[in-house]
């Protein structure tokens, strides 16, 4: 099977803007899912509300497109009631970390067996570009017209502190690495969290000096700091550049988990 077979072709054209990075993330995720050899009828995609959360609507499995922020609570019901299912959640930075923040930390704590892919465009895309809990300081959005004054969340640190078994961060530039990370997430029992920094030309790029999509992707590439490299810098007592973000496998462990396949 190729991962094309996981798409609902009768739903095309999709709603994403030209240059949106979400399609890349969906492709990488489905490539990893396809490698797992999972049956479609045993696989459920769940999401909340947002551009990112529209993804399950394009995937040919049972899919549950729920309410804003609540995807993980719905997914918990699905997975606990039927541990034999493979459950994958698509979410956005607003969906997961603002309105859904409480469900996020509790799903990590329970370490419930599912894989969550967060398309972090650092903005509320669907509602036209308002600030989110991951909008970087000083960035412009329609609700931070003078620059964001709130420090952002580090979603991976949050997931790690709350108890997720597997945590990784990549960007829409790192397609091979992302595909691999999702695969490891799918294979790891317990809660797997993959954050993907992704370009949103319409709601974020336009306001924040990324005139071309390629400029933003280039920024994501050049500002990624491999975790191993970051750790080395710290070991050597050298400063970690402040404008860079860590990518790579951040956490992998084997805490007690819930809803694991029989």
């Amino acid at each position: 099977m190729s991962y094309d077979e996981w798409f609902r072709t009768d739903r095309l054209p999709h709603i994403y803007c030209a240059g949106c990075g979400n399609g890349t993330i969906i492709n990488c995720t489905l490539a990893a899912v396809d490698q797992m050899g999972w049956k479609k009828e045993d696989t459920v995609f769940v999401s909340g509300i947002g551009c990112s959360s529209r993804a399950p609507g394009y995937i040919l499995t049972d899919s549950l497109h729920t309410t804003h922020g609540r995807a993980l609570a719905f997914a918990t019901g699905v997975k606990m009631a039927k541990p034999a299912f493979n459950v994958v959640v698509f979410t956005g930075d607003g969906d997961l970390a603002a309105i859904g923040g409480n469900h996020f930390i509790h799903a990590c704590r329970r370490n419930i067996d599912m894989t969550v892919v967060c398309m972090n465009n650092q903005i509320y895309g669907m509602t036209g570009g308002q600030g989110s809990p991951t909008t970087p300081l000083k960035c412009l959005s329609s609700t931070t017209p003078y620059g964001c004054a709130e420090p952002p969340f580090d979603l991976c640190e949050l997931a790690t502190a709350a108890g997720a078994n597997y945590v990784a961060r990549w960007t829409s530039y790192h397609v091979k690495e992302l595909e691999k990370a999702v695969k490891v997430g799918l294979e790891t029992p317990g809660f797997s969290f993959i954050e993907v920094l992704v370009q949103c030309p319409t709601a974020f790029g336009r306001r924040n000096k990324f005139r071309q999509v390629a400029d933003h992707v280039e920024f994501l590439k050049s500002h990624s700091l491999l975790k191993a490299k970051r750790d080395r810098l710290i070991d050597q007592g050298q400063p970690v550049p402040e404008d860079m973000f860590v990518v790579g496998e951040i956490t992998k462990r084997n805490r007690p988990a819930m809803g694991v396949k029989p």
Partner: protein
Amino acid sequence: MTRTEFWQGNTACAEGALAAGCTFFGGYPITPSTEVAELMAAKLPKKGGIFIQMEDEIASMASIIGASWTGARAMTATSGPGFSLMMENIGFAVMTETPCVVVNVQRGGPSTGQPTMSAQGDMMQVRFGSHGDIAIIALSPATVQEMFELTVKAFNHADKYRVPVFLMADETVGHMREKILVPDSVEKIGRKPFVPGNPPFKVTDPDLIPGFPTFGTGQHVHVTGLTHDERGYPAATNPPLHAALVKRLVDKIENARDEMADYDIVNPEAEQVFVAYGGPVRTVMQVMHDKKDKNVGFLRIRTVWPFPEKALLEFKNAKRFLVPEMNLGQIAREIERHVTVPVVPIPKLGGELHTPAELAAVLEEKA
């Protein structure tokens, strides 16, 4: 066969759920409903079911909807503050036609109000509380026996009509202990099977209810709270489609109101007629017993929503409908819509039942 028990109302509710085959409970503790969750926590795991204490009532409601799509009979229990938090996902269950049961053991509101006292203040919230035009089913028990029986019925209605069904109890009935006859087994009406090949939300039957395409059966169904077409795909900017969908979701419940009507009539020739549901039923029964007056009638309602308006017309000589409620007259207002004679609300706030003397005094008042 039945056996006799001496149970608390909340125990009877949980036992009714277990008898009905409930295999998933997601909830959050709140007085005066907590005993339902505690009993489910003790018993479900031993029967191979799942009990999960969620992080709040928003998540509780979400979890039972998720579980329901796997085919489970799923339930939660709460009271006012938690019920308010459930509203958005209740609307999601209505829009996605997800069978589930929500128990609300009502306490005094607004807000945190009276955690340990009785009330019926959520009767309009259950009907209209979630945004948009919706229709739901609500049942109100007046005895421990009915806590059991109506919980079973709630699961059957939920599966049959593909809608959230509410057991609108009150603290009085939830915490009261009395004799109950527990049957060995109960009737279970399952979900209408899905006919493969059909679009998942296509309706061909006159009851307007589509078959249920359980997750995991290879139907690849897309479930969304957005306005959707027969395939389940979003179609949120199509005006006629939206109108037809919402109309069908409401009609499938409203059209079945006679079928679902559940009430008792005492003294249909009477001129003065009590109408009650839940806790106040008990006080009315006492007054009826004390008076033994053919001119005092009683309509005892178990299915409150959809409201069984035809039952009111059976009192042909009625000059007044007297409606004791532990709220400021929520169902009295509904009754007013259906009759031409005066409707007298008998509100009681504070957390206690009306006394028989209070109701008897209203009977003596000049119409």
